[in-house]
């Protein structure tokens, strides 16, 4: 079965002060339709850079090499126009910090509706109605009223729900969730995880927290210094880690006793 | 990054050149700046590379001596502004509370005046001379620095190393001057450099109006005062000192920007 998303030898290099920094180094990855795949690593391991590379959101002096195949088509070769079509509609992303990922001066309803207007060419009114529906989907109370509010009028957890709404609005086949719960309080984290589980779409779940991976993902990759050091079935990897780094990660979590299966 | 460095270097070169020229003015100037040499205005020539002014004085010499005055006024004025600004800003930022409120109110009040006119008004009750020009310019341009320093203190005073210093019994004064202030020096230096640029502009405007450096002491500003009547007949009288002012101010801006990039790494 052909994978929905296939990364072949993907590298992202930054040119800085004459040196080349390999933020992502020769990564291979596959995500099948409907699969929830985890990407684990510490800060600075390149996880977020990988996510941005898939969406071609890397700005100069960074450059992405290799193949990012989406249903067989290499995204890296697409025209900017076609790439824009894919973003938000087929692949979308939920960012880590809801306090900075929502535009503070635009109503949240508009931030969701504009996705419908530009991708599906819906009218203003229909797009607005669609936005209200999506807000309802992510369990925002009184969506008809809250749709007119600004981000600062929501709590952290609700802001992240809005972010999920923005990303899920067009029912993309792949949702990249980059540390979606890291910036939230513990009480909020559970709610967002439940929400993501509800969505039943292909997902690349990025986190530094191994416990979350075991809860959410059927398969996982471990990343260190831009490279994939281990991959496989979640239970396999967590129960029987082959790489030293993976072992260290798991052990330190065991010590803090976050309750792994 | 390379492009900006070129500008800063240019600025440094020009300012250093100006400083050297100013200090060495008595040696390099071809003639005495006050000496009336010709009976009528002359344009630029071999004898007078920048021409003469309406009184027959050599402009090149006057510009060199004028540079001494204009640059030293700027330096002292900024020193005054820095002293007031750093002191007020540090006290406001460190002690907070009512003291902070009062100092900030005072700063706001001072910022509500149009600086040039305030200086003019002050000069109208004094007899303008070099000293009070320096002091008055300094006394009306400290507000930005005070705000800056206050901001730095507000952020830094909560940091751990300040707590540590207090824990070992350092008195407030010591903490302010030995611990927090040195860390805030970066933006202050940038401010000081840009402040000098502003001071040169202000002094030249003041002297141009006749309320700054008084003739016959030459300053770039008061040289321009006399040039007004001879705009058509002797444009070099107006152009030359102006060019010097522009070069000096531009250089200081370049240096200031260069310093700002160096001292505030953001990437």
């Amino acid at each position, binding site marked *: 079965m052909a994978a929905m998303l296939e990364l072949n030898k993907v590298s992202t290099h930054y040119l800085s002060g004459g040196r080349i920094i390999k933020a992502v180094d020769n990564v291979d990855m596959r995500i099948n339709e409907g699969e929830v795949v985890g990407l684990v690593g510490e800060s600075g391991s390149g996880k977020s850079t990988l996510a941005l590379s898939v969406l071609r959101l890397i700005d100069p002096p960074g450059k992405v090499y290799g193949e990012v195949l989406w249903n067989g088509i290499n995204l890296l070769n697409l025209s900017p126009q076609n790439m*824009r079509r894919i973003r938000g509609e087929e692949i979308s*992303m939920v960012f880590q910090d809801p306090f900075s990922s929502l535009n503070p001066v635009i109503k949240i309803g508009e931030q969701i509706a504009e996705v419908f207007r530009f991708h599906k060419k819906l009218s203003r009114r229909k797009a607005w109605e669609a936005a209200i529906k999506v807000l309802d989907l992510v369990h925002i109370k009184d969506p008809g009223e809250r749709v007119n509010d600004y981000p600062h009028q929501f709590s952290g957890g609700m802001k992240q729900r809005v972010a999920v709404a923005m990303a899920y609005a067009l029912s993309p086949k792949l949702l990249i969730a980059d540390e979606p719960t890291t910036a939230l309080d513990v009480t909020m984290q559970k709610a967002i995880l439940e929400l993501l589980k509800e969505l039943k779409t292909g997902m690349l779940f990025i986190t530094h927290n191994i416990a979350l991976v075991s809860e959410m993902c059927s398969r996982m990759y471990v990343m260190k210094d831009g490279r994939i050091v281990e991959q496989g079935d979640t239970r396999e990897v967590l129960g029987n880690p082959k790489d030293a780094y993976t072992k260290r990660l798991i052990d330190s979590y065991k010590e803090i006793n976050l309750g792994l299966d | 990054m390379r492009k900006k460095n070129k500008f800063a270097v240019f600025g440094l070169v020009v300012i250093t050149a100006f400083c050297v020229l100013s200090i060495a003015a008595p040696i390099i100037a071809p003639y005495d700046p006050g000496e009336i040499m010709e009976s009528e205005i002359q344009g630029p020539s071999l004898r007078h590379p920048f021409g003469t002014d309406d009184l027959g004085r050599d402009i090149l010499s006057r510009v060199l001596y004028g540079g001494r005055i204009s640059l030293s006024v700027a330096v002292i004025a900024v020193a005054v502004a820095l002293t007031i600004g750093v002191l007020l800003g540090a006290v406001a930022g460190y002690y907070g509370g009512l003291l902070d409120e009062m100092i900030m109110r005072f700063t*706001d009040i001072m910022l509500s005046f*149009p*600086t040039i006119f305030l200086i003019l008004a002050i000069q109208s*009750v004094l007899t303008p001379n070099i000293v009070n020009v320096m002091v008055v310019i300094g006394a009306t341009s400290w507000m930005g620095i005070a705000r800056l320093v206050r901001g730095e203190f507000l952020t830094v005073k909560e940091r751990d190393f300040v707590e540590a210093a207090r824990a070992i019994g350092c008195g407030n004064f010591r903490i302010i001057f030995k611990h927090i202030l040195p860390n805030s020096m970066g933006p202050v230096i940038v401010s000081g450099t840009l402040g000098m640029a502003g001071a040169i502009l202000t002094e030249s405007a003041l002297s141009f109006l006749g309320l700054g450096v008084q003739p016959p002491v030459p300053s770039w500003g008061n040289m321009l005062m006399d040039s007004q009547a001879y705009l058509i007949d002797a444009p070099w009288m107006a152009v030359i000192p102006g060019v010097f002012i522009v*070069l000096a101010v531009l250089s200081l801006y*370049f240096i200031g920007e260069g310093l700002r990039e160096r001292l505030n790494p953001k990437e």
Partner: protein
Amino acid sequence: MSRYIFRRLLQLIPLLIGITLITFFVMHLAPGDPTALFTDPNIKPEELARIRVNWGLDKPVGIQYLIWLKNAARLDFGYSYISGKPVIEEIGERLPNTLLLMSVSFIIILLISIPVGVISAVKKGSWFDNLFTIISFIFMSIPTFWLALVFMLLFSLKLGWVPSFGDLSLPVAVLVISGLAGITRYQRASMLEVLNQEYIKVARAKGLPEIIVIFKHALRNALIPIITLMGLSIPDLFGGAFIIETIFAWPGMGRLGVSAVFSRNYPVIMGVTVMTAVLIVLANLIADLGYALVDPRIRYAKKE
């Protein structure tokens, strides 16, 4: 939001008091008879003595200040030494001219600085950006009065395109050029900062066209601090206008004030100083109110 407005209005009072205090006490350092600050200079000596007692001019400075303040609040700044006319009348005749000069310049500055700043930021590092940076540095280094002289020499005397005096074009041109550079650079910096924000990346991640990202998502944020900035640039705009009025003989309040300085016409100096400061305070207040209206974070309260 109403709390914000109320707070701002409250802050006006110490500001105005402070302004009048400083103005009064600085002027009080002037040599000469302070009686003249209050009264018609055509008055007889016996009257003068009576006024001296009545107005408390034999009283301590503090009381004199309060009396002056009381009058100033009614816009009575005394009489001009030179013309004998009430100061407020002289100011009133000329203020509209100054406001005209400043408003036209202000609008032109806005119209130019916003597009130039935005384009410079979006195309950072391009030839446009570098050219603009160099030009703005040069403009910032030119003394306003010198630029005025050069313009007068060039456009009026040598080329004869515009009359030297009484015409608005050169004064506006000089004021605009003086003020443009700084404000455009701030616009550029503000836009650059916004473009670095995560929500801009998010907008792109949603597949929105770049034009929308720039104009809808970025610009709206970048323009907000500009309101405050324009307010902060008003004092310098006044200062520049005053000098320009003097050189081009534009009949505004600035020219009145500067010539009052030359003739030690203290009542007029005080009147112009206070009027200008009050206008600046008002302008800043309007800017702050505008800011509160435009920034939803201030306009709408939090809900949770």
